[in-house]
């Protein structure tokens, strides 16, 4: 157990250091979601009163696509020089690698969200009518939901042809309940029409179920060359 946390922490530090030096994932994610915001602003009239109803959907769709960019990057880093093999021949627990990658992605995507949300607020002239604090658990749980399965499926799609396309193909169908929860929850808070509690519970359940499944199956996936 001790080594699990030690290796997780070491891997996380290493990933953050690598990301800090190259800034591959963060830059491409930022630029990508910026584009999405601008294109959405053209496609939908952001000044209309009903923008409050669609903003939740737009934000999360933008983050979902941006997250896929980050998720593809995480494992690409391990494939260069086949460093993943060095991990696989070591006695370090597979789940430590998974947790480190998932937490790393969580941090990257959260940073992105923190940077992009003000932009959305400005573009769509949003002001929240419901209890705004509920957006925080929705964002945290929703991001983890995307990232935990995304990390897992990105590892899975390492073993496929055209893996960059494979990831969204595997991830999106499974993520539908989570996306629905995030979008509907955010919309509920923004409009203040109905309570968002259910969505928070839904996201929490989703997170617990799939985090458990990922931890149980990741070792199998990692060693299925």
């Amino acid at each position, binding site marked *: 157990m001790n080594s699990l946390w030690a290796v997780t922490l070491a891997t996380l530090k290493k990933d953050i250091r690598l990301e800090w030096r190259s800034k591959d994932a963060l830059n491409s994610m930022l630029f990508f979601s910026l584009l999405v915001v601008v294109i959405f602003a053209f496609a939908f009239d952001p000044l209309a009163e009903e923008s409050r109803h669609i903003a939740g959907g737009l934000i999360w769709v933008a983050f979902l696509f941006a997250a896929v960019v980050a998720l593809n990057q995480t494992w690409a880093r391990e494939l260069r020089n086949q460093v993943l093999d060095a991990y696989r021949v070591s006695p370090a627990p597979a789940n430590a690698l998974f947790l480190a990658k998932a937490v790393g992605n969580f941090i990257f995507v959260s940073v992105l969200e923190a940077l992009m949300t003000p932009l959305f607020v400005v573009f769509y002239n949003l002001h929240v009518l419901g209890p705004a604090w509920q957006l925080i658990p929705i964002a945290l749980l929703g991001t983890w939901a995307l990232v935990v*399965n995304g990390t*897992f499926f990105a590892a*899975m799609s390492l*073993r*496929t*042809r*055209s893996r960059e396309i*494979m990831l969204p*193909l*595997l991830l*999106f*169908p*499974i993520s*539908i*309940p*989570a996306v*629905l*929860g995030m979008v*509907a929850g955010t919309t*509920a808070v923004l409009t203040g*029409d*109905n309570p968002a509690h*259910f*969505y928070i519970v*839904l996201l929490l*359940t*989703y997170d617990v*179920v*799939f985090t458990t*499944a990922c931890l149980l*199956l990741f070792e*199998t*996936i990692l060693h*299925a*060359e």
Partner: protein
Amino acid sequence: MKRFFPILSILTAILLAYALYQALVVVPTDALQGDVYRIIYYHVPSAWTAFLLFLINFVASIIYLIRRSPKVDIVALVCAEVGVVFCTVVLVTGPIWARPVWGIWWAPGDIRLTSTLVLWLIYVSYLVLRRFSTSAQTQVLAAALAVFGALDVPLVYFSIWFFRTQHPQPVIGGGGSMDPRMLRVLLINWLAFLCFAFLVCWSRYRLEVLHREVDQAHALESLAGAGMAEKASLPLSRSAP
């Protein structure tokens, strides 16, 4: 076993014809919807069959992850593929039924149709993974994905169930009990489709076994160039063509 196949095929054909006759002619017309309600006799049994096949896929995938037996993996693959076919039938007949009854092709708030669509997407992604995998252990990856897909099903159901309370509901729930005659015909149709699904799965299973035998033969062939083929043979049986 092979001799039973034609016998079972004929029996299934008779059963399907009988079920069709029951559905179109014998059963009385629905008071509210008119004759168009008879779509139920194809739509609902197909859905039940698809769900059953996906359930078998889930169980087989778990068994595969524990026991790693290739036969169980073939069962999982076959059930997913045939399940997707039946699921497609559900998704096509659903809107055809919805149009005359509700006046719209698709109701996003309808829990059954929408969750079936998500189910279809999940299992299509499963088949795509199996197709595109370059791993020598595709079966393991696929089994893991199948477990994820199955875990997702209740969550999909509940998320849509809650989501629709926000939306105007075009669906008049399946309230009211069913005429026992209708239920009987529904079950006859389900039985007929189950037999049909079994036959299709059987064929698909044999196809997959044959496919793996051909792969094996190619593997033998691939290294036989230096005259080594006699010395070593792969352990898996290779049936005569």
